[in-house]
């Protein structure tokens, strides 16, 4: 009865009340920011006295913001490609091999995911100082790649698990070469997993703050780093505009992912 929605009695209304409050708690701040980004109050008065697009105008005409946006996109795209390729190799390797210590290695591959990012950030910062990689695109890419990879490996690994390796053998018996088998049989079967890994990797890199703060230099910074350093000084509505654009972008990616999921199901 406790798990029958229709037969919960007045408990149902308690649950619904809590649920509604939680959903509002999760949703309202996002809507609030979106509303403020169109408000004309410098002091973020809500509800805004009037409406304006000036914060977006400031954002999109300021070369510093535009540069950081460009850097973010560049880093995210490179990270996405590398993360999917390397994640695919690792997932295939883990799925198709058996050796002593495999589970330990698997755990090692996933550690960057559970490690507090600040520890990794500080460690990499020290390391990159020695190598001269701080403030470089390479530095950003390596840092983001390390924390995106576990998600790629897991997502692609999951889709490989539901793929029957006997199909590969069957294709080989039909006369396909090893590479041709991978290209024509394995990859198409796990392409959904790879696509999910790509979206994950992109979003992780695109949203990454902590590592980026340590990798950034005054001349090379990603969008989150710029938001971060601006936020430490004041709460300008320009950030509301930037945040709203980020939310809109996230929604687009989510819709894309769910459309793709629907498309493959039917």
């Amino acid at each position, binding site marked *: 009865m*406790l798990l029958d929605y229709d037969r919960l009695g007045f408990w149902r209304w308690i649950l619904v009340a809590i649920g509604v409050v939680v959903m509002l708690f999760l*949703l309202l701040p996002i809507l*609030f920011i979106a509303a403020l980004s169109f408000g004309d109050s410098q002091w*973020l008065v809500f509800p805004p006295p009037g409406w304006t697009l000036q914060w977006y105008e400031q954002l999109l005409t300021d070369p510093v913001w535009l540069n950081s946006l460009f850097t973010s996109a560049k880093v995210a795209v490179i990270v996405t490609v590398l993360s999917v390729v*390397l994640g695919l190799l690792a997932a*295939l390797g883990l799925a198709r091999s058996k050796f002593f210590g495999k589970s330990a290695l698997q755990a090692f591959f996933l550690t960057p995911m559970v490690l507090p990012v600040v520890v990794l950030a500080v460690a990499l910062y020290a390391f990159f100082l020695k190598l001269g990689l701080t403030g470089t695109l390479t530095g950003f890419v390596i840092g983001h790649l390390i924390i995106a990879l576990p998600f790629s490996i897991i997502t692609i690994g999951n889709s490989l698990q539901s793929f029957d390796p006997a199909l590969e053998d069957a294709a080989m018996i039909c006369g396909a070469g090893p590479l041709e088998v991978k290209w024509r049989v394995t990859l198409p079967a796990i392409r959904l997993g790879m696509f999910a890994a790509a979206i994950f990797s992109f979003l992780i890199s695109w*949203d990454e703050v902590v590592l980026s*703060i340590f990798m950034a230099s005054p001349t090379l910074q990603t969008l989150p780093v710029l938001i*971060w350093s601006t936020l430490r000084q004041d709460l300008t509505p320009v950030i509301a505009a930037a945040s709203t654009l980020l939310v809109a972008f*996230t929604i687009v990616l989510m819709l894309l992912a769910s459309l793709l999921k629907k498309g493959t199901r039917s």
Partner: protein
Amino acid sequence: MSTALSSTTVPVRRRFKLGPGARGIKLLIPVLLLLAVFFLVPVLALLLRSIMEPVPGLQNYVELLGSQTYVRVFFNTFMVAGVVTLITLLVGFPTAWLLAIMPKRWSQVMFAILLLSMWTNLLARTYAWMVLLQQTGLVNRVLMAIGVIDEPLTLVNNLIGVTIGMTYIMLPFLVLPLHATLRAIDPSTLRAAAICGASRWQALRLVLLPLALPGIASGALMVFVMSLGYYVTPALLGGTGYMMLAELIAQLVQSLLNWGLAGAAAFVLLVVTLGLYAVQLRYLGGGRSGMGDR
């Protein structure tokens, strides 16, 4: 005979099978190298500095655990993580419960909100709370308007702000896995409890909670561990007066260039984090963890 070496000793098989053996292992090398060089080495090097700088010895750990200031940071960190975990559980459990049983059309809406919140840029969400919670912010104005308070409360640059912001961020990480646990429980079991004579409270206490316990425990542990190592939200909502561990590590490196002490603090955070995850794997049978602050 499908160990790493078997295919090199039985070369005939390789003509037929891509499968087990050295071939699979070769695929692991690029990631292994990348993580060894850019993950394992830097982290170990940082930890090494904690016992090597400025001079070899354990003085960094003595300082970290002996000084009032740093003990205060540890206290803040564990307290905030604990309170956030508790609040998240108290509101997250009913939410996950509702999500698990309500008609699909509504649960889909809830899912969309949870996912949107989870995937919205962390800074955007933190910024929202900075604006909402400030002296002249909406929360204070609403509270004053309905007469709960007479003058604005200080909700940012202290642990209240951090707790609110962290709860906001952690909720989806608890609700989503817990919902899966609750979905896996057969509703007939609860019907059986009812027909056996159990009141709602008795059914909740004697059946539903015990059955959901693995999910509750691993979800709570995950939220707790993630909260311990969070940097962005505590730094922005807590201010410098109320520092947490992750912020301390960053400060020690960025402002004080005290690498030894930073390494020691990182080591403590690392041990607690990985230790708690090990507990989870050992006793709660895994359960996928979420994401750090990114």
